[in-house]
């Protein structure tokens, strides 16, 4: 027995030594939960392939899920302790306390603080004392309108100036629609997506204020009433297709199909529609983005967008940090923005400007809106209860449109809904 033990021990030793480098380079597989609006998943894959080539031993798997299920799936995973390493999300308040603080894992935390908009950094922090860095915006969105310029031209109506008010824009659009509309092809002057988020911009421009000092909401302001009445009048006077707001009891409904089919003169949406318009409208007519119409207090849109975050439960925080550094590097963000036609959520790049290969003019109209966004627009967008306010405004105003309640009752209901939420 003894004469075999030395060679056997030697063999075991050799095997262990031989296996050590392999153990040291054990491949790391990172998972990122992702949803797609357009081609961004494809672009991301391309960028990740390059990252993997430069970082042997790290592979990144994109777990694609439909947007409608994204936050529910993630919530179940997070609560079960099975969160992915990273995810692309739009409701940062859903996972407070579960994000990975990237500060020790990124090469230069100051670069992140300098280039991630402060409101975005704050939206991922669960208290005022929290100074962590938890993610970056894959893109910035801004709400704003589009016009069908061909319809203006065909109707012989002059396009209002950039500083025109909502009233001036709607008057001009109504003149266009009245000139060109017929029973075969009805043309509507104006439409706004069925979304409280889309409503916020015009209401803030009209001096509405929502967020109190203690973080709760006050709904009943002259600016809110003025804007709500404006949207109601669009419905009452048949200026807006009825099925956008009245045709649902609880969903976001875009008015884009009307715009794409050439039946809408003025459409309040946001920059995320640009890629879709370019593809769907093609050369059928001339469309363009216009600055947000002015109100008494300004001409603001509302920011938005998606964020990529890391989750604290990851077993590979160093690799997550390395990947985040790569994805948020200026050249990568720039390429991602150009190829997806997104506005970058990177302050350095916003300042420098992005030369888009397609739809450059429309995208830069939206990019130019960013400096004019009112502070309350950021506050609302990144308020933990912002999504609930969005839904309450959308659904309650729809009830007014359907004749179920008055505007006064709707305002009271939105306030009560929000108060109940804060009490919960």
């Amino acid at each position, binding site marked *: 027995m003894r004469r075999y033990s030395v060679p056997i021990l030697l063999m075991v030793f050799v095997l262990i030594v031989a296996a050590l480098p392999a153990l040291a380079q054990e491949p790391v597989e990172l998972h990122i939960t992702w949803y797609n609006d357009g081609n961004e998943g494809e672009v991301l894959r391309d960028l990740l392939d390059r990252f993997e080539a430069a970082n042997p031993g790290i592979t990144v798997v994109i777990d694609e899920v439909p947007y409608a299920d994204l936050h529910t799936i993630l919530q179940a995973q997070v609560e079960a302790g099975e969160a992915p390493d990273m995810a692309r999300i739009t409701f940062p308040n859903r996972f407070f306390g579960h994000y990975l603080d990237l500060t020790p894992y990124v090469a230069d935390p100051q670069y992140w603080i300098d280039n991630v908009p402060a409101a975005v950094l704050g939206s991922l922090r669960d208290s005022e004392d929290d100074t962590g860095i938890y993610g970056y915006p894959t893109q910035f969105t801004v709400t704003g309108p589009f016009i069908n310029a061909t319809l203006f031209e065909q109707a012989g109506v002059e396009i209002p100036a950039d500083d025109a008010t909502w009233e001036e824009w709607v008057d001009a659009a109504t003149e266009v629609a009245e000139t060109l509309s017929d029973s075969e092809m009805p043309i509507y002057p104006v439409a706004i997506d069925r979304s409280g988020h889309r409503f916020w911009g015009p209401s803030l421009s009209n001096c509405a204020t929502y967020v109190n000092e203690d973080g709760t909401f006050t709904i009943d302001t002259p600016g809110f009433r003025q804007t709500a009445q404006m949207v109601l009048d669009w419905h009452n006077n048949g200026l807006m297709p009825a099925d956008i707001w009245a045709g649902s*009891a*609880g969903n976001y409904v875009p008015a884009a199909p009307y715009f794409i089919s050439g039946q809408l003169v003025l459409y309040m949406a946001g920059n995320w529609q640009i890629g879709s318009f370019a593809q769907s409208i093609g050369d059928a007519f001339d469309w363009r983005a216009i600055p947000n119409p002015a109100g008494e207090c300004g001409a603001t849109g509302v920011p938005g967008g998606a964020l990529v975050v890391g989750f604290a439960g990851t077993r590979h925080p160093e690799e997550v940090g390395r990947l985040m550094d790569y994805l948020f590097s200026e050249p990568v963000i720039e390429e991602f923005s150009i190829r997806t036609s997104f506005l970058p959520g990177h302050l350095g790049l916003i300042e420098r400007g992005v030369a888009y290969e397609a739809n450059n003019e429309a995208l830069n109209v939206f990019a130019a809106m960013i400096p004019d966004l009112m502070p309350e627009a950021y506050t609302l967008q990144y308020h933990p209860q912002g999504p609930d306010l969005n839904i309450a405004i959308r659904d309650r105003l729809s009830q007014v449109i359907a004749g179920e309640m008055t505007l006064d009752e709707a305002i009271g209901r939105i306030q009560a809904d929000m108060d109940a939420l804060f009490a919960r």
Partner: protein
Amino acid sequence: MESVGRILSRPAAWLGDALDLLLGPLQRLVGTRRMGYFFILPNMLVFGIFILLPMLLNFAYGFTSGSSILLHNREYTGLRNFELLLECDLSFLNPGSGNFFNPNVCQYDRFWRAVNNTTVFVVFQVGIMVLFALVTALALNRKISGRGFFRSVYFYPVLLSPVVVALIWKWILQPQGVLNGLLTGWGVEPQPFLTAPDWARLWVIFVSVWAQMGFHTLILLAGLQAIPAEMYEAAAIDGGGLWQRFRRITLPLLMPTLMVVLVLSLIRAVQVFDQVFVLTSGGPGTATLYMVQFIFQTAFDQQNYGLAAAASLLLAAALLILTLFQLRLGRTSEIA
């Protein structure tokens, strides 16, 4: 040469032997009478995991609040969710301050709107559908030409998915849909079929009846065919008219089948969701918001799982009471 049947019977015999090998000792251990429990065990496991457990969890969620999915992270709040749902301003009891059917006086007005809408939908949809299904079954039970063709025609919509049915009708009824196109062609103003509350309610009921009537017609037809022809012949000889034969023979003998149809259609009507969700999404306003959509949106749009669970428990209780009442009614009429 062995016959095919003999060859095929071999695997069955092997399977029997294998099962015997497995279950024989078990049977000897627990006795023949208790073996039944082992045979239903797989089914009970599936039922327990996928139906009973979620039901129990749902029951528990109804007494908790919070946004967490995990039960142990949720706060026990007793009957608070039920109180919230049922809380209405009772000042309407004072004259001129409102009325009992006005959801605006309730804290969760959307819940009461869903309750009201569901009640109206159930009454009209079930009533109209059962009546039409009965009339259609009576007609198809007669010796009319093209009977097979008509039976198929009425049954075809049942084969379609509710989502497909809703998409087809949406295409027809939307503001610039087929029906409005036809109306415009005839010089009639386009109608807001899906964007005016009354129109939307009407069409939701119509589409639902259209889609489901064939199934219930078929059940009633089977019931009608089980009635012996001699009874009608004897009634005819005794001078019984068409109405008398229907009232004295058809209706009493069809009553058990009619009760099955009523219970099934009632349960299905209360559960209405997918078809309406695609057709109107519950709108305009909340005109076609029904209970299941309210529960779905409360849970998954607002992450208020406790309130949604409480609403689903109230719905289940209402459904249980209705079904028991119906069954009792059916038994009474059978005895009579």
